[in-house]
């Protein structure tokens, strides 16, 4: 990697040390996620259960409630962080985020429609959510390619906010019209990790693996694309094909995450933002950093969601929005909007 205009001083920082530090933090967050909760099983009892000698109640809470939601949080965090990073690279827009641009809302709306039509199977849900995410992605790209909009990050976000608003209100409309599905749909308006089980993950594993393969294949061409279409073509890549592959990967990832945990906004914005701050703009480095950063944000937010209003819980989507919105404002208000 010899420096083009995108790889400036940032790439000379130490992503490796950042990676080690983040992995350590993530491990601590996972431990905290097992030890802390809204219930009576406090950290000491949980620690005993973790070492295999706790009371049955503590062991149940750890093994059947906290462990599954931690693992689901890890997977959802990776998927959303990577999806955000990819979407930002392909739209060349630092504000591109699946939740902000209507991709998550598309997935949630598709699931709500499927529920109203009578679908109950969890396996079906994943495919439907991914199709909805795909439709959301295509809308976003359509807007991005409208002359001028693609170069103005804020305008793209505005279009995405409009799309999200439209899809959310359509989802609420379904709530009004179909009482049978109403309680189920309510879950698809704000995301949560509570009550998720490990078998929910089995349904999404194949598509996550497929998305992983695609990401590995497009990382290098995507970095070339960041230098400009002509340079990428000159290096033997096909920008159209790369974009399409990235969109497929984003749809697979966001659809899988949404099908498991509902729409969770802002993770795809904050995580790549932090990754770029640590490792510079090269997509091949930020993608790696998204692996610990995404789960770190989701798992931490989930822990806070359990503790703030115990014995009840807050929806996770509310908390990620609370951390994410200030980052959005900071990026937009920065005098020189970073371009990708």
């Amino acid at each position: 990697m010899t420096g083009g205009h995108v790889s400036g001083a940032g790439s000379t920082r130490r992503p490796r040390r950042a990676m080690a530090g983040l992995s350590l933090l993530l491990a601590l967050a996972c431990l905290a996620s097992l030890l802390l909760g809204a219930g009576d099983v406090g950290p000491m009892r949980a620690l005993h259960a973790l070492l295999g000698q706790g009371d049955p109640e503590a062991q149940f809470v750890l093994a059947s409630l906290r462990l599954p939601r931690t693992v689901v949080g890890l997977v959802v965090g990776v998927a959303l962080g990577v999806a955000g990073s990819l979407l930002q690279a392909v739209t060349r827009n630092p504000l591109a985020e699946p939740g902000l641009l209507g991709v998550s809302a598309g997935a949630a709306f598709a699931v709500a429609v499927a529920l109203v039509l009578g679908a109950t199977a969890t396996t079906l849900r994943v495919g439907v959510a991914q199709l909805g995410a795909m439709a959301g992605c295509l809308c976003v790209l359509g807007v991005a390619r409208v002359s001028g909009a693609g170069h103005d990050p804020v305008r793209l976000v505005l279009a995405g906010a409009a799309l999200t608003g439209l899809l959310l209100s359509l989802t609420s409309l379904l709530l009004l019209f179909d009482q049978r599905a109403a309680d189920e749909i309510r879950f698809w308006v704000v995301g949560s990790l509570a009550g998720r089980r490990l078998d929910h993950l089995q349904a999404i594993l194949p598509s996550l693996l497929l998305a992983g393969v695609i990401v590995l294949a497009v990382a290098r061409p995507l970095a070339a694309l960041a230098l400009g279409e002509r340079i990428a073509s000159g290096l033997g890549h096909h920008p159209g094909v790369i974009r399409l592959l990235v969109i497929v990967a984003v749809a697979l990832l966001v659809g899988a995450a949404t099908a498991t945990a509902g729409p969770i906004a802002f993770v795809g914005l904050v995580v790549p933002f932090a990754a770029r701050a640590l490792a510079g703009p090269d997509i091949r480095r930020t993608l790696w950093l998204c692996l610990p950063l995404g789960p770190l944000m989701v798992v931490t937010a989930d822990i806070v969601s359990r503790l703030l209003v115990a014995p009840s819980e807050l929806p996770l989507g509310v908390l990620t929005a609370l951390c994410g919105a200030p980052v959005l404002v900071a990026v937009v208000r920065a005098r020189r909007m970073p371009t990708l």
Partner: protein
Amino acid sequence: MGSAHYRGRATGRMKLAGVLLGIMLPMTAWAERTLETAFGEVAVPDSPTRVVTLYEGALDTALAVDMAPLGAVTTRGGDGVADYLTPRFDDIAIVGVVREINLEAVLALEPDLILAPPRLPEAQYRLLSRMAPTVVPLTQGFDPDAWRDEALLFGRALNREAEAQAALARVDARLAELADRHADEAPSAVLVRWMPQGPMVMSERLFSTGLLRDAGMSLHDADLVEEGRPHSDTLSLENLSRIDADWLFLATLNEEGRDALDAAQASPAFARLDVVARDQVVPVDGQLWTSASGPLAALAILDELDEALSAQ
């Protein structure tokens, strides 16, 4: 102030006229009655024929006293009147949802009496009362017994107070009969709505939970519902044991309550509850248990309770 003044003068004049007419024309057809409502005294026609109910409790009471309204609002989360009432009338025009009344649809029905929900916003009251006398109950806050006063008020408004009292008496008889079954110790009970991420515990001060209490059950909300709220936030699954009780009523807006029960039972935390092991979880109709009120709703709820208790 102006309207109160006007009303006072009008009633004064009417009383005088009433006295004179009472002396001179004992057979007169012209007679109006006045009711005490949340917006002061309201004069209502002697025998209303074109009634619109903007509140599920009012519709319930009207049907209980054999008066079929022309228009009504939908049940919560539904697009029509609650299922338990549908066999009791032929045709009712839907004039909106309780929070969003379609005023034009109300006007189109040319009502001569409007029965409205408690806490009707004053701006809406002003518009509605220009269409027809509008009766708003005095109920404040969450009061599990308010439905009785409301039923009597609506019964009086329809000039069928005796029928309303009879409907209440039927409910009381049913309550006493159910309460007799467990004379020694009141079984504990909790009403929840099940969501995928955990249950929401319903207040013990709702219409349905108040009825269960009167039927001799010991209702509790696990100290989770704040004053003035209809239900708690989503309870963490880690704390699910708090809703353990002799009976657990699982309200759902799903028509197939079994689906909700299956969904709940798929959750390992739910399957561990004692009440689940004893098979005393009862899926109930959310339209009826968390949205409706009135004497017919009371009887329908008590029927569901009876069925659950008898199955044991």
